């Protein structure tokens, strides 16, 4: 069991291209930790550095109290599961799973016992004698996972393991992976670009963008208290709405003002802003479920024009155009309907997020 610590880790590629910038993370023993971000955010580079497949340009990587920077992949006792499975096509399922054990010079009896254990664990005992070529994607990934867990690695690394599977199978594999992790208790790092996967599976999530760590936190934390505009916009489906506006204070009260609306901030939010000396130009962020819609004006509501109504069965997504020409997406009751160009009245509910327009950091957390 292993605690994994990255201290100020950098990955600088040829031509001074920065892949990962000053990354510090501590992954606790037995944790299922997700690295989340769009492609090119540095999550895969980070994973490959942890595996030892790429050199760490600067910084330190610790497995418990061992500095592993200069250890080869095979000396780190990490196992990896790949998006494209990366099975050895010329070996049978059995031999694929047995492969890492054979390299460790284990006895045939021991190998057989472990391979059968892993296969049974994953429910693929029937597949053992088969060649890997004919297997389905889900079966291949099960073999890939079998090969990874069979030697009980210190750290299990998963690189988009279920991205290649079709949607229904992906949902089932998500559950199976969570179940597998809870039974094995191996420290696991899970790389994905899919926020749904990260939210559903991980104990904690590190959100990355453009090589930089944006935020580390539990799924709840990154959802409810996004530290940056990027995190706010990346996590959640449908995504957070943003509007340019200006901060103003009148009689000790804080207001966010835009051409379309003027919203009074809660006392808690106002307290956070007391010490804010930055630009008054900010961005307001609000999630689709935190806006209420009515057909008639109410207190502190403002008008907007219906753009499209999209019924989804369990809910309806309403997109509206504000006076400032910004498009907002709102979650409303499933039976809600309003024709295009109809005027509706919106009211923001807490939590409201305010982001610095230049630094894009959340001013309220």
């Amino acid at each position: 069991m292993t605690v994994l610590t990255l201290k100020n880790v950098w990955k600088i590629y040829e031509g001074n291209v920065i892949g990962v910038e000053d990354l510090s993370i501590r992954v606790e023993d037995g944790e299922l930790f997700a690295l989340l971000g769009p492609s090119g955010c540095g999550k895969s580079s980070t994973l490959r550095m942890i595996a030892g497949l790429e050199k760490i340009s600067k910084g330190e990587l610790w497995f418990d109290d061992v500095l592993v920077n200069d250890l080869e992949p095979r000396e780190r006792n990490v196992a990896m599961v790949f998006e494209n499975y990366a099975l050895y096509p010329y070996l049978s399922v059995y031999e694929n799973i047995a492969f890492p054990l054979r390299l460790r010079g284990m006895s045939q009896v021991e190998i057989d016992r472990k391979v059968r254990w892993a296969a049974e664990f994953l429910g693929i005992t029937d597949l053992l004698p088969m060649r890997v070529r004919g297997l389905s994607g889900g079966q291949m990934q099960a073999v890939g996972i079998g090969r990874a867990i069979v030697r009980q690695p210190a750290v299990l690394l998963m690189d988009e393991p279920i991205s290649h599977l079709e949607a229904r199978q992906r949902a089932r594999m998500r559950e199976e992976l969570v179940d597998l992790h809870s039974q094995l208790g191996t420290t696991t790092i899970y790389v994905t670009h899919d926020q749904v996967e990260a939210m559903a599976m991980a104990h904690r999530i590190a959100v990355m963008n453009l090589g930089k760590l944006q935020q580390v936190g539990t799924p709840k934390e990154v959802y409810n208290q996004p530290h940056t505009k990027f995190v706010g916009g990346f996590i959640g489906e449908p995504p957070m709405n943003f509007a340019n506006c200006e901060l103003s204070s009148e009689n000790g009260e804080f207001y966010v003002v835009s051409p379309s609306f003027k919203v009074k901030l809660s006392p808690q939010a106002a307290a956070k802003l007391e010490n804010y000396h930055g630009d008054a130009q900010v961005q307001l962020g609000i999630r689709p479920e935190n806006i209420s819609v009515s057909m008639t004006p109410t207190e502190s509501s403002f008008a907007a024009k219906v753009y499209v109504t999209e019924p989804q069965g369990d809910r309806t997504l309403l997109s509206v155009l504000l006076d400032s020409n910004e498009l907002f997406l709102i979650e409303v009751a499933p039976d809600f309907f309003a024709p295009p160009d109809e005027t509706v009245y919106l009211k923001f509910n807490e939590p409201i997020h305010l982001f610095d327009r230049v630094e894009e950091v959340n001013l309220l957390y």
Partner: protein
Amino acid sequence: MSVNAQTFAPISSGRKAAILRSRRLVTWLSYLLTALLVALFLFPWLWVLSLGFKTRAEIMSPNIVWFWTPTLNNYIEVLINKGYWRLIINSLIVAVSAVALCIIIGVPTAYAFSRFPIPGKESWFYMILTFRMAPAVVLALPLYVLFARAKLLGTFGAPILAHCTFTLPFVIWLMRSFFDDIPKEIDAAAMTDGYSRWETFLYAVLPLVKSGIVAVALFSIIFSWNEFLYGLILTSDATRPVASQIPSLIRPHGTLWGEVCALATTASLPVAFLIFALQRQLVRGLSFGAIKG
């Protein structure tokens, strides 16, 4: 989309016969074309084969002699009396050594090109390819001087190294595309599973490009076997490969066509046999990209 009722109407027997006829016609035409192509390629070779079994008078006759009693005299004269059978061995030594050398150097180089971040990689790669494009004559003179200085002239080393100038780029170029087709994750898996970088290359990746190596080696052997210029100018009588010795049968009093053809026939047999024996590997190697994964 409208559905034409005729689409589902049963086909009349007359129409059926017409379709069958035209299908048969296409089949016959394709046979005919194939036969023509085969004849086109086979004719010169058969011609050479037949001349090898004719006497000088039959060869030189102004009318083509269609029927004759085959003679083995040309073969006996050129292979045994002139002792040219040794040249086949020379060719074998040169071709096999050159190709072995190129595979041993070229395959790891190709792997490095495929996997490692080498500064200026693509420029290096195209530079190597350019060597392959240079005409042999361009290098002949410099190589002659170089080998003379190194006291390699007249040894097997000279043609072997000279053949590497065109075989090595070929090996690197083709093998790189084979390696590029193997997902890099295979390497990553093997390395985390317990192999060192070298072991990963040798035991995890090489088995996947086996048929590619066979195909590349076979082509290289053919190039080397058929090479003429370097074999002629960089060797002595004792080390000359067979292809380069054929001009010695052009004599002041006329060309010994019978012996030329006998020698040419003998010289092409080993390669023909090799291709025949490795046919399946060859096809698999060449269609590699289509079956990756």
